[in-house]
Each structure stands twice: as C-alpha cells, then as structure tokens.
C-alpha cells in the first residue's frame, strides 16, 4: 500500500520515460534536425525570415523549368502507369488469360529492378545514334532516322512507367481479388452486361485502389532521380531531384546553390505532403467494404478469340520490360568496347573480372553498399522495434511526436533527406561527416526508419497486452516477459523490417549520389558515375552484378519468409 502511493505521488521517471526520451532523442537528431535545417536555409537569409528571396529563386528559369518538368514527367508516368497497371491487374484477375498466376508473378518483377539500371539499358537500346535498336533499323532496314529517341519526355515517361506500374498493379489486383464476386453477380442478375458492370460497378468500387496506387506512382516519380539523370542529361531534361544534385555537386557548395537546393527541396516536400494527404483522403473516404464473404470465384470474362493475342501482349510486355533490358545489361557488360556488335569474338569476361577483382572503385562500391545496407538495416531494425514498442504498447504522453517523426521520412523524397543530412553533418555543429561513409549511413537510417516502424508496429499490434500480463501473472519480471513472450512474437516483424531496408539500400542511388566521396561510392553511384564518364561497358557489367545480388537477395528472403511461415 505504502509503496503504491509512493510510486504514484512521485513524478516518476522510470524505464518507459527513459526509453521515450531516448527514442525522441534519436529521431530528433536523425530526422527532425536535418528537415528543419532545410526549411531554415530556405527561408532564413542573413538572420531574417525572407519569402521574397524564395519567390525569386522559384522564378529563375532553371528552377521553374525543373518544376515544370517534374510535373510533366510525374503526371505522364502517373497516367500511363495507372492505365497499364489497371489493365494488367484486370487481365490477370478477371479474365481467362492462360498462365494467369505466372503472369501475375512476372508483373511484379519490375519492382525488384532498379529503374536507373533499366534506364541505362534503354539508353543502350534506343539512344538516337548509338542505340542498338535504332542502329538496327537505320543500318539494316535503311531507315533515315532513329525510330525512337529515348532522350525525350516520352522516353523518360516510358521507362519510368515500366518500373513503376506495379504500384497500381498490386493495389488493383489485390482489390479485384478480394472483392466480393456477388457484388458483380447481383448486377448481372439485375440485367447488366459485363461491359456495363465493369463501368458502373467494378471500376467505381476499385477506384479508391486505383487512385491510391496512382498517387504512389506520382509520389515516387516526383522524387525519382536515376531515370531522369540517365536519360535527360543529353537533351537537358531535368526534374527537381536532378537539379538539386547538380546544384550540390557542380557549384561546390556555394551559399546560393545550397539555398536554391533547399528551396527546391521545400517544394518537393510540400508536393509530397500534398500527394500523401490526397491519398489519405481517397483511402478514408472511399474505403468500401467489398471484401468477399463466400468463396465463389468471380465470373471470368471469356476472352475467346482474344485469349492468345492477350497472352502475346503480356509476353511481349514482359519481354520488353524485363528480359530485353536485363539481357542488354549483361551483353553490353561483356563487350570489349561499347558500340561493337554482339558477336562472340567481341565478347569477353574481362570486364566482369576487372570490376570484381581488380578495380578498387567498383570493389569498394560493392563492399560499401553491402556494409551500408547491413548496418542501416540492423540499426533501424533494433531502433525501430524499441520505438514501435513505445508507440504501440507504452502509455507515455506525447508519443504522437514519435510516430510523426518516425513516419515523416516516408513522405520525404530521398534527395531532401540527403540535403538535410549535408546541412546537419558538414561541420556546422562540430561534427563533419561529409565525404565519409558515415554520412550515408545516417541518411539511410533516417530514410528507412519508417519502414522499420511500420513492420514492427504491425507485429507488435498483434501481441495482445494480455499475453504479457499472463507472463507477469505466471511470475515473470517485465524483462523476462519481454524476452520470452514479446520478442519471439515480433521476430517475424523484425526480420521483415531488416529485409525491407537491406534490399532497397543495396540498390539505392538518389540519396547516396548526393553524399558520396572519392572512396564512398555505393553500387548505384558507381554505376551512375561510370556511365556519366563514358565507361559504358563497365557501368553495364557492374549493373549486371548488382542485378544478380538483388535477385539473389529477393530469392533468399522469399525462402526465409516462407520457411518461417511454414514452421
């Protein structure tokens, strides 16, 4: 009795508060400070709040052009990606297309492939003069002009669409599969034909999923650096992230260029916030309960005469978006000199040998990417589980701040995070990490914390409080209860978090391209810079190695996850 009242009357500062403060501290340093510095630099000139200067920066031709390009490109990609994604989602869920299951898996493969590697491949195939396909048509079939110029708005939109359409595909095919088939059957029995049903019932019901996927494409495309950087450089097409990159890299850190970059970053953040706000509204307003109760399969549209043509469309699409670019990467990586025809006598293993075993630059980059990926995944996994625990399970005041801070980077484009990290860790506050591998690590932790929080919170929410209470009632201390009950139950969430971070970190370009130093290139940066320097074959060979590592990683996870679930 006595101890109870004591505990209550004291302004207690126990383990929960300590954990809470620690979590807040970590998130403030890693996430909040860099973000605030961006806004500070953008709006604060010579100790004054200054909006006129911001407007001036925005009115400059190049800033204005970057904004416009970002809008054109992400708008175009959103439209095409949504159309392609919705069409294929409908095809694999609602028709009698042959090999539907296989096709469904194949349509998810582009998600694994880094878009900038795809861009690289398409550059080799369709650049106006040197591209293999264009040359084939001009040299062999006698065309006067290249058949397609990939260095154009259309080219960039096309390439981004190939790698971003799965956002819509996943959302829509999921919704179509889970949708109660009787919603459509009741329309049929009411007298509507399949076309009318699709128009009046099916599409309106999955519209929230379509829109939400479309907004994800838009968000991603807005913040996307690689494809635009690779394909736009020749014709001077650049978007906001590319301009930020140029400002930071080419102007050697002058105040004006940093300011321009922060203004651009602010615009990106606002756009992203707007997109996410819209998505939230779409999801909360249009969340129909359309989940199936009974297990009858939905009526499949019989394609009849179109069955084989549609299959061919799918195969051609997959061939063009996955097989052709991948093959190109590996083949070009094996050429003695870029531009030679693919004859056996022109092929060599030397490039692969060189980048794997001889050249420090590429060997370093592989090592850097793997260690950075492992380190950031491990750190965010553990930090994520602790912070999620505070958010989900503990009754501490102000944990909303934690959630906000942790999830913030989820909506913040990579270039913005990188810029913030530069502002925070380049000696301004006594610590200079610039040009070291640590600055990239800090940026990765900020960037991927949200992934870890999502996975871990989801796992923790499944662990009901009564499980811990039962352990305590059985005589376990809080620490024992955590160790013996909570941790084993959230372990799948932690494993998921680890891979959700490790794999994207392996192929990361947008963040590290702003942060790399002479010896701290990541794989992405190395591929990108080699390509910039005209070392096309080495760039392709390294991209090939990267693809192998990525695919192996994905397969390994699938193995791990399925065997875990099976046990």
């Amino acid at each position, binding site marked *: 009795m006595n101890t109870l009242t004591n505990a209550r009357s004291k302004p207690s500062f126990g383990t929960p508060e300590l954990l809470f403060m620690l979590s807040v501290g970590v998130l403030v340093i890693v996430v909040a400070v860099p973000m605030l510095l961006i806004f500070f630099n953008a709006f604060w000139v010579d100790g004054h709040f200054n909006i006129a200067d911001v407007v001036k920066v925005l009115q400059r031709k190049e800033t204005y052009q970057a904004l416009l390009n970002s809008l054109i490109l992400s708008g175009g990609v959103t439209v095409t990606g949504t159309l392609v994604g919705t069409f294929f989602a409908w095809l694999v869920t609602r028709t009698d297309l042959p090999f539907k299951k296989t096709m469904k898996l194949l349509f998810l493969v582009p998600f694994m492939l880094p878009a900038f590697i795809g861009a690289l491949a398409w550059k080799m195939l369709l650049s106006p003069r040197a591209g293999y396909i264009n040359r084939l048509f001009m040299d062999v079939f006698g065309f006067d002009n290249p058949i397609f110029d990939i260095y154009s708005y259309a080219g960039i939109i096309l390439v981004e669409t190939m790698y971003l359409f799965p956002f819509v595909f996943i959302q829509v095919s999921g919704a179509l599969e889970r949708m*109660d088939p*009787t*919603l459509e*059957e*009741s*329309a*049929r*029995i*009411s*007298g*509507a*034909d399949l076309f*009318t049903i699709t128009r*009046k*019932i099916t599409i*309106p*019901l999955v519209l929230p999923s379509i829109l939400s996927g479309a907004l994800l494409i838009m968000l991603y495309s807005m913040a996307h650096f690689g494809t635009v950087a690779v394909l736009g450089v020749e014709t001077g097409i650049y978007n906001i992230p590319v301009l930020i990159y140029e400002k930071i890299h080419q102007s050697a850190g002058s105040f004006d260029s940093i300011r321009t970059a922060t203004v651009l970053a602010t615009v990106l953040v606002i756009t992203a916030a707007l997109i996410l706000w819209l998505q939230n509204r779409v999801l909360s307003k*249009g969340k*129909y*309960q*359309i989940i*199936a*109760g*009974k297990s*009858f399969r939905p*009526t499949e549209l019989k394609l009849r005469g179109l069955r084989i043509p549609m299959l061919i469309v799918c195969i051609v699409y997959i061939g063009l978006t996955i097989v052709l670019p991948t093959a190109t990467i590996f083949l070009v990586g094996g050429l003695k000199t870029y531009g030679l025809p693919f004859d056996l006598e022109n092929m060599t293993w030397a490039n692969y040998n060189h980048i794997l075993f001889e050249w420090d630059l590429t060997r370093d980059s592989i090592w850097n990417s793997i260690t950075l990926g492992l380190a950031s995944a491990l750190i965010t996994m553990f930090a994520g589980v602790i912070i999620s625990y505070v958010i989900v399970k503990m009754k501490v005041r102000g944990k909303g701040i934690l959630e906000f801070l942790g999830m913030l980077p989820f909506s913040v484009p990579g270039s913005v995070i990188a810029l913030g990290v530069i502002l925070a860790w380049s000696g301004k506050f006594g610590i200079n990490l610039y040009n070291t591998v640590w600055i990239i690590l800090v940026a990765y932790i900020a960037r991927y914390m949200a992934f870890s929080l999502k996975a871990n919170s989801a796992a923790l929410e499944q662990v009901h409080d009564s499980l811990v209470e039962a352990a305590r009632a059985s005589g376990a201390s809080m620490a024992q209860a955590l160790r013996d009950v909570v941790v084993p139950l959230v372990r799948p969430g932690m494993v998921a978090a680890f891979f959700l971070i490790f794999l994207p970190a392996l192929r990361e370009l947008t963040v590290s391209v702003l942060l790399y130093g002479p010896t701290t290139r990541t794989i992405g940066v190395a591929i990108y810079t080699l390509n910039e320097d005209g070392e096309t074959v080495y760039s392709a060979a390294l991209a090939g190695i990267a693809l192998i590592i990525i695919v192996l990683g994905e397969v390994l996870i699938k193995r791990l996850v399925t065997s875990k679930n099976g046990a």
Partner: protein
Amino acid sequence: MAYIELNQVTKRFGSVTAVDRMNLEIAQGECMAMLGPSGCGKTTTLRMVAGFEDLDDGEIRVGERIISSKAKKYYLPPEQRNFGMVFQAFAVWPHLSVYENVAFPLRIRNLPKAEIHARTEEALKHTNLFSVAQGSPDDLSGGGKQRVALARALAIRPDVMLLDEPLSSLDPHFREEMRFEIKDLQRRFGFSILYVTHDQSEAMALSDRILVMRGGVVQQIGTPLQVYSNPANRFVFEFIGLSCFIEAGLTPAGIRLGDASYPWPEGVVPSGEIIATGKGLLAARPTEIDFVSEGGIRGEVLRKVYLGETIDYRVRVGDAEVRIQKTRRTQGPSVGDNCGLRFIYPHWYPVQ
C-alpha cells in the same frame, strides 16, 4: 403445372460431381427450399438456374423457354433471365445510395424515368426502406442491407426469386422477422422462390416443398411435413430434426439386441430386403420414445439432464446409446434404472 423445370442437370468441378442428374419442378408461385450440408451442391444448383454456371449435362427451362441446355450448347446470359436474386453477403453496392441500388436494374432496362421512380418507390415502401432511401447502404444494419437487396430484386417484378442463404449473415432475431417479410412479399407478388439454406427450421417455415441434397444427389423432395415424418433414408432422417439410431440384428420374427430378442416394435416390419441382410437401423425421434415399466426394449439409464422444459435422457440399449426427450412433467426413471422403451413411430433403414 411446372414453371421451372430442371432436367437431368449435372455439374462437375474437375473429378467432383457437384450436382448429379438432378430433376426438379417448381410451380408458379411455389416456394422450394434446397436444404443440405455445405458442399452438397445446393448453391451450385441455384447458380446454374441463375446462369452463372454452365451445365455438364441436362437442361433448365422456365415456362416454355429453355434457358440452359448442354445438348444445344445454349445458355441465356444471367442478365437476360429476368430473375431476382439475393445473396448471403448482401451484395449491395456501397458506392450507390439505397435508392440507386434499387433503381439500378430498372435503369439498365432503360425504362421511362417516371416508371423507374414509381417502381423504385414501390419496392422501397414494401421493404420499409423509404425513409433511408437517400442514404448509403453502408450505414444500414445487416437486416437493412438485405432489405435493399430484396427491394432491388423486387423492382424488376421477377417471376422467379433466387435466394442464396439470404438470412445466414443476419443476427438471429432479425432472421425470423425477415423470414416472414419474404413470405409476405411472395404472397403479394406471387413469384416462385428457389431458396438455398442449411437451416432446416428456415426451410420448414418458409417453403411449400423442401428438397434435401447430399453430395450432389437429391435425397428427397416433399412438403415439410412429409420430409419430417417420412424421411426417405437415414441421411434425411438425421439431417432434419433430432434423431437417434439403433443398429439391430434382424430375424424373420423380430429384432435382436445383444442377447435379447424382441418382436417388431409397434408391429412395423422392415422391408424384405433389409431383413435379408440380417441387420437393420431402427430410427426414432427422441421425443417419440416412451418409457414403459413392463415390456418394451430394455435398457439402462446412463444420464439424465434437465434442459428446462424438457428432460434429456441417455439410455444404453445393447451396444447403442439412445437419446430420449420428455417434458419435465412426465415421470421418468433415474440414472442407473433399468427401463423399457416404446418406439412410437419407428422407421427402418438399411445398415450402410
């Protein structure tokens, strides 16, 4: 006269025969309930009538029209059959208002605006939905949603109403209410009903005739009373109402249970074929067994449980356990007593 006619209707899914050579006639204005355990083929049958499934054999007619025929390879699409259908999961469209849900089939038919309005309002009034017509069906309870589905089906004034477990998703107290509403609407509009359910009391209360199915094969078709009092086989006996069975040895003169011999209970003699096998299954309803002090089939009371209005006994007879239910006013034996049983309406079935 038969209005809906199923002729040798068969449906296979891979190697499983879901519906096996089914014959069924439903008269105009009749309510036919298809009853059976899950997976017995009742829903598949309904979906074939609706036109959602093709046939592997046989044909289906409505009136003079053939609507599905394997031989003619002709299937009238569901949207042209002019049936009303109500699904277990309601299947009302959340993106349309209650009014628009009900008006949908009429708009599809391109009826004049005034008529659409009149018929929608009529259907809404009959289902007590008029006050919530402009709202979203998502705001309604399960019973409310099912009323929307009913109104939508009514709006086209169908001759045939197909109901696929329409009450299973409802709270128990709503079920009884909806049952009567459906019956009431049928009386008013005179459509035929084909009703799928696994709930026997629902089937009994609602339908003119019941069809009991098992493994795709029709077991019995008859009025609720016929099916209940004269089950065609052991399965039907067990599926409808409470039941208990005693396996007995048969001789030409009577039955043998363990070492004891008895004459035929109540003089009901099984068929010659069953006697010839030497074994038979004596089936009885627990409420239709009396305790007698002298004679009867002898057994020992194992358990006696008071269920309020009734008392539930378990009595061992030979190797079998017999369940008996008596009202609480009836004097009965105690646990451990030796007692005699009289089977008031015994049925005999072959031992499988």
